[in-house]
């Protein structure tokens, strides 16, 4: 390294250490969000320059080796793509609602634990996983995670991983749909704008199909104008005595509407609804993230949430459970997300132009997603903590009106008046903000604070709030639609193992059965979440976190196996250490979710509490009939079974992983299955 370079990196390190020092030395006084942003950026820069480069060296990245796109280019799936263009593609594919929701939920323990886990997690685990999987797939002609596990570890672990990925998909869809339900229930303004995207997308679909095919930018711009009009007009809808009831629904009614929507939308031709809405949601997502970043730096808001709250002991109202292990599964995306292993072994490895780009795209894009998570944490921490807890606590804790919520939240140690709660609701154009758990509405309030400080002031706050809700609901609904289709194919592949004809992607009946089963599965968990006495998020989000982190552990086990088979096992600690940490967190969390005696944490304890009460003929809120009591017990037991299944998946993959590593260690020569290091002969 040249000395000028050395000095430059020394300065970055000093700035980062200084920013972290400011955060660490804040004793009670509010610190500015900009310190968090600076600390994060310095950590990312240093990790990218040093650790990512080390990773690239130990796996033997070789820019002279042909990538899949160079071996068999076809101009369609396999295209050598400029690294900046591909970075955008990969980032847009990995960054969804996950990094926006987890950190908001984790803010109940204060901003500090979440921030530290996001930074440490991404550098040592999340970005390592994304980079390694991208590298593995790139060396295997862009094969998927499941295929690579089959290839390097055997058929049985391959199938187990496929099953695990399907279960994760179901839980993700349920929990994302639950967030939408919580955000839109009883909000005619929000529901109107989200509903308006359906005819809008159909018009866009017709436009791109027949009027001006392929004009993605043009149609997205038209769609964006439509979205803004829908938000503006939504205020009138909400104020109108005749129109508002058409868009005001209870959570349970919305749940059924969403299930019906998911079933229909995933059977429509893709160009009609899914593709055009994906254009809107993708560009809106990128735009909103960029605007939020600029907004935080320009407004430089102070963090009003304490660095640590009393809820690190596990007694928090948003989700239950102590800091270890539950913080580490609550923030998945942004720190480490197993789902990325599916993306990094999807289209990206087929588009990469040089092995040398893998660090920038695999490691770099994950750092960027982590930054999104940091911004979400900031968004949740700049609002009045009293408002945060009023919004995120279940109705069973804070009641349903401003007076009861103010009393309950003040008793938690966050003084707030009923007037503040009512004013906040009025400012954002809603009748109530109480018990809107799920992250999206809280983040929307935070974003509305930041955006309205730049443009429009208080008068524009309601507009910005609904803009933020729309932006999140839009890409969640796109994910529900696309996820149902992906889940359907996963299910068809799984059933196809027993009944081969079921795999056929084009025949009608297997597709219909696959879609039906998939919607029924996530619909079941969604309904359970909506009617859950603990608020739904408390039940489903940990299941999502556990499954997502377990998939990450599976991907890291695969990467470890390949390092052993490459005879580079002395470097394998880079994947073994994060894998051990994730296994530790997820196994502890699953065991607690199964067997903890606190009914707010343990599924079985909760089931027993309701079963015992039912046996005595006693009703526990919110159940009003014996049938409802029995359903809660059944739901708890199904969640417990699911938890046990996840445990079995990860335990078996670890078992197979260790076995394969031991075999590889005994062999003298590398045994990996890679594409050759020389160019393929021309076709």
């Amino acid at each position: 390294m040249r000395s000028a370079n050395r000095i430059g990196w020394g300065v970055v390190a000093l700035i980062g250490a200084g920013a972290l020092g400011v955060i660490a030395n804040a004793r009670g006084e509010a610190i500015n969000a900009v310190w968090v942003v600076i600390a994060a950026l310095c950590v990312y820069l240093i990790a990218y320059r040093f650790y990512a480069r080390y990773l690239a060296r130990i796996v033997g990245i070789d820019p002279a080796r042909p990538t899949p796109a160079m071996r068999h280019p076809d101009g369609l799936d396999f295209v050598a793509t400029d690294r900046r263009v591909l970075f955008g593609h990969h980032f847009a594919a990995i960054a969804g609602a996950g990094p926006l929701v987890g950190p908001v939920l984790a803010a109940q323990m204060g901003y500090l634990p979440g921030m530290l886990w996001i930074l440490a997690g991404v550098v040592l685990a999340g970005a390592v996983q994304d980079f390694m999987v991208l590298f593995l797939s790139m060396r295997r002609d862009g094969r998927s995670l499941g295929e690579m596990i089959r290839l390097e570890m055997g058929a049985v672990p391959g199938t187990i991983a496929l099953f695990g990925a399907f279960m994760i998909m179901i839980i993700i869809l349920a929990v994302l749909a639950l967030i939408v339900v919580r955000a839109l229930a009883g909000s005619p303004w929000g529901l109107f704008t989200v509903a308006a995207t359906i005819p809008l997308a159909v018009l866009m679909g017709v436009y791109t199909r027949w009027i001006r095919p392929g004009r993605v930018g043009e149609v997205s711009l038209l769609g964006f104008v439509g979205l803004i009009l829908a938000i503006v007009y939504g205020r009138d809808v909400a104020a109108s005595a005749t129109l508002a009831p058409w868009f005001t629904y209870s959570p349970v009614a919305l749940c059924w509407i969403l299930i019906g929507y998911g079933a229909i939308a995933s059977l429509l031709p893709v160009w009609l609804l899914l593709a055009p809405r994906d254009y809107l949601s993708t560009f809106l997502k990128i735009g909103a993230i960029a605007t939020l970043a600029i907004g935080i730096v320009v407004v430089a808001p102070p963090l009003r949430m304490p660095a640590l709250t009393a809820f690190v002991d596990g007694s928090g109202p948003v989700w239950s459970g102590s800091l270890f292990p539950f913080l580490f599964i609550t923030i998945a995306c942004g720190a480490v997300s197993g789902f990325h292993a599916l993306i990094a072994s999807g289209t990206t490895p087929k588009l990469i132009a040089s092995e040398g780009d893998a660090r920038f795209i695999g490691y770099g894009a994950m750092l960027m997603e982590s930054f999104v998570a940091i911004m979400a944490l900031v968004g949740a921490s700049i609002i009045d903590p009293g408002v945060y807890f009023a919004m995120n606590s279940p109705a069973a804790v804070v009641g349903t009106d401003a007076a009861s919520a103010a009393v309950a939240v003040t008793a938690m140690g966050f003084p707030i008046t009923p007037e503040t709660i009512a004013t906040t609701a009025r400012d954002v154009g809603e009748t109530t903000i109480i018990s809107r758990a799920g992250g999206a509405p809280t983040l929307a309030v935070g974003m509305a604070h930041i955006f309205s400080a730049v443009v429009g002031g208080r008068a524009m706050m309601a507009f910005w709030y609904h803009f933020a809700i729309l932006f999140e609901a839009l890409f969640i609904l796109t994910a529900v639609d696309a996820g149902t289709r992906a889940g359907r194919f996963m299910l068809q592949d799984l059933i196809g193992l027993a009944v081969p004809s079921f795999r056929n992607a084009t025949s009608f009946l297997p597709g219909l059965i696959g879609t039906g089963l998939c919607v029924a599965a996530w619909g079941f968990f969604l309904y359970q979440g909506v009617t859950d006495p603990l608020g739904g998020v408390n039940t489903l989000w940990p299941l999502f976190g556990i499954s997502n982190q377990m998939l990450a552990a599976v991907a890291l086990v695969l990467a470890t196996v390949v390092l052993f088979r490459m005879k580079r096992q002395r470097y394998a600690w880079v994947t073994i250490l994060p894998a051990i940490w994730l296994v530790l967190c997820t196994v502890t969390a699953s065991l607690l979710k199964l067997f903890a005696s606190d009914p707010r944490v343990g599924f079985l304890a909760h089931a027993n509490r309701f079963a015992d009460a039912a046996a005595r003929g006693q009703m526990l809120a919110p159940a009003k009939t014996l049938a409802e009591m029995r359903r809660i017990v059944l739901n708890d037991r199904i969640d417990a079974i699911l938890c046990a299944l996840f445990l079995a998946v990860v335990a078996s993959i670890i078992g197979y992983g260790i076995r394969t590593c031991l075999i590889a260690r005994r062999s003298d020569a590398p045994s990996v299955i890679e594409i050759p290091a020389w160019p393929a002969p021309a076709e």
Partner: protein
Amino acid sequence: MSLKALWRGLADTGRLMVGVPSYQAYCAHMAEAHPDRPVLSATAFFRDRQQARYGGRGGGRCC
């Protein structure tokens, strides 16, 4: 980098974000590697990519 090249890069990035690679690159590839094979029209190319992204296995995006 010229302003025009910057705009081209941004447009390409936007399109690839929603799964549509460069049509020019496709045409160039076909002209170079398979001059004998029929080339998809711009519309057919767009529809093919749309179906590939959303219609098949692994319609990938994250949570």
